[in-house]
C-alpha cells in the first residue's frame, strides 16, 4: 500500500514536523481556557514563580493536563496500532474492543466491593488486570479459527463486552449510592484535574510500553504482512504476539488508571498515520505517538470551550469526533 510520504528523508521531516506541531498544540493548551495566559506569564510561571494564582494555575492545572494528555494520547495511539496489527482488525482499538471498559470495571469492582483504602499505585495494578482480562477475552476470538479477517465479529464482541462491563459498572455504582459525578468520572475519561505526581508514578510503565513497542518494530512489520509468513517465524511469532499484548496492557491499563476510559484515539490515529507514512512500524509508531498526543491535547483544549464555563470531559469529545471517523471507515471498507 502506498503511503502519502515515501522517501525516508520526507518521513523524517514528517516526524519532525509532527513533533513541532505537538509542541505548538501543547503551548496552546497551556495558554487557553477559562483563563488566558500570555507567553510572558508562562515564562514567569516557570522561571520566576511567585505563588500567585495565575502561576499556580499554569503549573498545577494546565501543565499537568497537557503533559498527561500527551502521555495518554501517545500511549493510546500506540496501543491502538499494536492492537490493529495483533488482531489483524483495522477497527481495533482499546476502547472499541472493550479493553478500557474492562479496566474500569475491575477498578470499580475493587472500589465498591472491598474496603481497601488504596491509592493510585494499587489502582494501576487493578487497571492492568482488567485490561489484561478483557484483551485476552477479545483476542481469543480474533485468533481463533481460520486466520481470515473477522473484524466484524471481533468488533461486535468487543462492543458487547464493553456494554456488559459498563452495565455492571453502573449497576455497582447505583448500588453504592454513587453520585452522578462519580459515575461520569469512571464512564468517561478526562485529563483535567489529575495531578502531575500521578503521571510521574505511571510514567515508568508507559515508558516500558513505548520502548517495547518500538523494539518490536520488526516483528510487527512481519505480523502485519501475512499470517503465513508470520507463522514461518515459528516460536518467535508466539513470543512476539505475547510481548505485543503485554505492551498493549501496559499502555491501555496505564492510560485508564491515569485518565479514565478515553475512546477512539487508538482507532483514529493509526489509520491517519498509516495513510501518511505507511506500514513500516519503525516510522509508524513514533508518528502515532506524536499524533495521538497532539490529538488528545487539542481535544482537551477544545473541550474547555464547548460548554464554557463548564468543562466537558475529553472522552466525550473524542467519542463525538471518533464516531464519524468510524462510520467513514466502515463505509470505505465496502464489504
Amino acid at each position, binding site marked *: 500500500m502506498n503511503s502519502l510520504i515515501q522517501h525516508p528523508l520526507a518521513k523524517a521531516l514528517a516526524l519532525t514536523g509532527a513533533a513541532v506541531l505537538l509542541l505548538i498544540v501543547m503551548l496552546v493548551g497551556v495558554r487557553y481556557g477559562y483563563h488566558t495566559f500570555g507567553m510572558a506569564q508562562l515564562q514567569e510561571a516557570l522561571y520566576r514563580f511567585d505563588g500567585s494564582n495565575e502561576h499556580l494555575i499554569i503549573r498545577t492545572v494546565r501543565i499537568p493536563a497537557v503533559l498527561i494528555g500527551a502521555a495518554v494520547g501517545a500511549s493510546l495511539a500506540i496501543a491502538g496500532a499494536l492492537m490493529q496489527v495483533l488482531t489483524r482488525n483495522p477497527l481495533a482499538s482499546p476502547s472499541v474492543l472493550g479493553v478500557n471498559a474492562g479496566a474500569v470495571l475491575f477498578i470499580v469492582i475493587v472500589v465498591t466491593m472491598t474496603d481497601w483504602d488504596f491509592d493510585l499505585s494499587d489502582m494501576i495494578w487493578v487497571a492492568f488486570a482488567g485490561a489484561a482480562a478483557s484483551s485476552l477475552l477479545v483476542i481469543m476470538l480474533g485468533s481463533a479459527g481460520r486466520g481470515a479477517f473477522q473484524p*466484524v465479529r471481533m468488533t461486535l464482541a468487543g462492543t458487547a463486552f464493553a456494554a456488559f462491563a459498563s452495565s455492571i459498572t*453502573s*449497576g455497582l455504582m*447505583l448500588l453504592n449510592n454513587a453520585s452522578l459525578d462519580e459515575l461520569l468520572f469512571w464512564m468517561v475519561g478526562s485529563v483535567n484535574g489529575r495531578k502531575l505526581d500521578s503521571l510521574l508514578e505511571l510514567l515508568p510503565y508507559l515508558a516500558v510500553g513505548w520502548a517495547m513497542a518500538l523494539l518490536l518494530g520488526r516483528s510487527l512489520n512481519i505480523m502485519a504482512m501475512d499470517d503465513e509468513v508470520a507463522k514461518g517465524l515459528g516460536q518467535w511469532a508466539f513470543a512476539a504476539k505475547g510481548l505485543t499484548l503485554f505492551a498493549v496492557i501496559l499502555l491501555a491499563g496505564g492510560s485508564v488508571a491515569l485518565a479514565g476510559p478515553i475512546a477512539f484515539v487508538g482507532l483514529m490515529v493509526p489509520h491517519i498515520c498509516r495513510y501518511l507514512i505507511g506500514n513500516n512500524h519503525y516510522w509508524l509508531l513514533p508518528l502515532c505517538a506524536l499524533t495521538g498526543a497532539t490529538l488528545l491535547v487539542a481535544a482537551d483544549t477544545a473541550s474547555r470551550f464547548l460548554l464554557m464555563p463548564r468543562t466537558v470531559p475529553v472522552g466525550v469529545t473524542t*467519542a463525538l469526533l471518533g464516531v464519524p471517523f468510524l*462510520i467513514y471507515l*466502515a463505509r470505505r471498507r465496502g464489504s
Partner: protein
Amino acid sequence: MREGRNRQVVTSKLALLLAAAILLALLVVLSVAFGALSLPVTEVIAALFGGGEPQSRMLVHSLRLPRTLVALMIGGSLGVAGALMQGVFRNPLASPDVMGVGGGASAAAVAFITFGAGSVSIHWLPAAAIGGALVTAALIYILGWRGGSSPQRLILIGVGISTAMSALTTFLLISGSSFKASQLLNWLTGTVYGASRVEVYVLLPWVAVGLPLAWMTARRLDILTLGDATASGLGEAINRSRLLVLLISVLLAGAAVSLAGAVGFIGLMAPHIARSLLGVRYAWIIPMSALVGASLMVGADMIGRLAFMPYDLPAGIFTAAIGAPFFFYLLYRNRQWH
C-alpha cells in the same frame, strides 16, 4: 416415513414451546403473588378474579399485575427484536442494545428530561424515546446504505452510532441539572418500576400487532440467513426484506426501551436460548424468543423487587448479571462461528 419423523420433530418442538409458555405463566403467577407486601397465595388468586379484600385487589390490579404484564411484554418484544436482528445481520452477537437502538432512545430520553421536563408532562417521555430509537435506526440504515445494505457495514455503523449516542447522553447528563440524575440513572439501567395500567394499555397494541408481524417474516429470515447470493438467487428482494425486518425489530425494541429504559442483554440472550432448544428455523425461534425474553424480564424484575427490600433495584442490573456469564459462554462457544 420421513413425514412421520417430521411430525415427531414438530410435536416435540411444540411441546417445548408449551413448556416455555407454562414456565412463563408460572413466573407471572409468582411475580404477582410475591412482593414487598406479603399476602397468602389464596388471597392473591381471589383478588385476581375480583374477590378478596379491597387492598388485595388494588395491590394485584393496580400494582403487581400491570408491572408483571409490562415486564412480560417488554421482555418478549426485546427477545423477538434480538432474534430478528440476529437473522438480518447473520451475526449471533447482534442485538438492539449493541445496534444503537437502546442508545438512541436513551439519548432522546435524557435530552427530553434535560430540556423539557417541568414544562412538558413526563408522560411524553416514551414518545421521545421511541422517536430517538427510530431516528437512530434510520441514521444507521442511511449511513450504511451504499448501493445496498450489507449486514457487515450496518453492524459496524450501528456500533459506532451506539457509542456516539452514549457520548451524547453523557454530554447531556453533564450539562443538565442534577436533580433528576438519580432517576435517570435508574432509567438508563432499565427498570419497570412504576408501571401501571396505562403502560399496559400503551404497550399492548405494539406487542399484539408487532409480534405476529415479526412471526410472518420468519420465512424471509430463513432465506436471508442463507447468504445474500443464495437469497437473491431464490428471488428474494434482499434489501427490502432486510429493511422490513429491521423496521419491525426497531419498532418492537423501541417500544420496549421507551417504557423501561435501556434493558440490556435480553435481545442477545433470548434468541440464543431459543436456537439451542428449537433449531434454526425462525418460525420456531421467534415465538420461543418471545417466551424466553418475557421470562427473563419477569424473573429479573422479581429479583430486583424481592432481594433488597425495601429497595427496588432496576431489572437491568440483573439482566446484565445473568447476561455476563451467558455472554462469556456464548463467546467461547461461538469462536468458530461464522
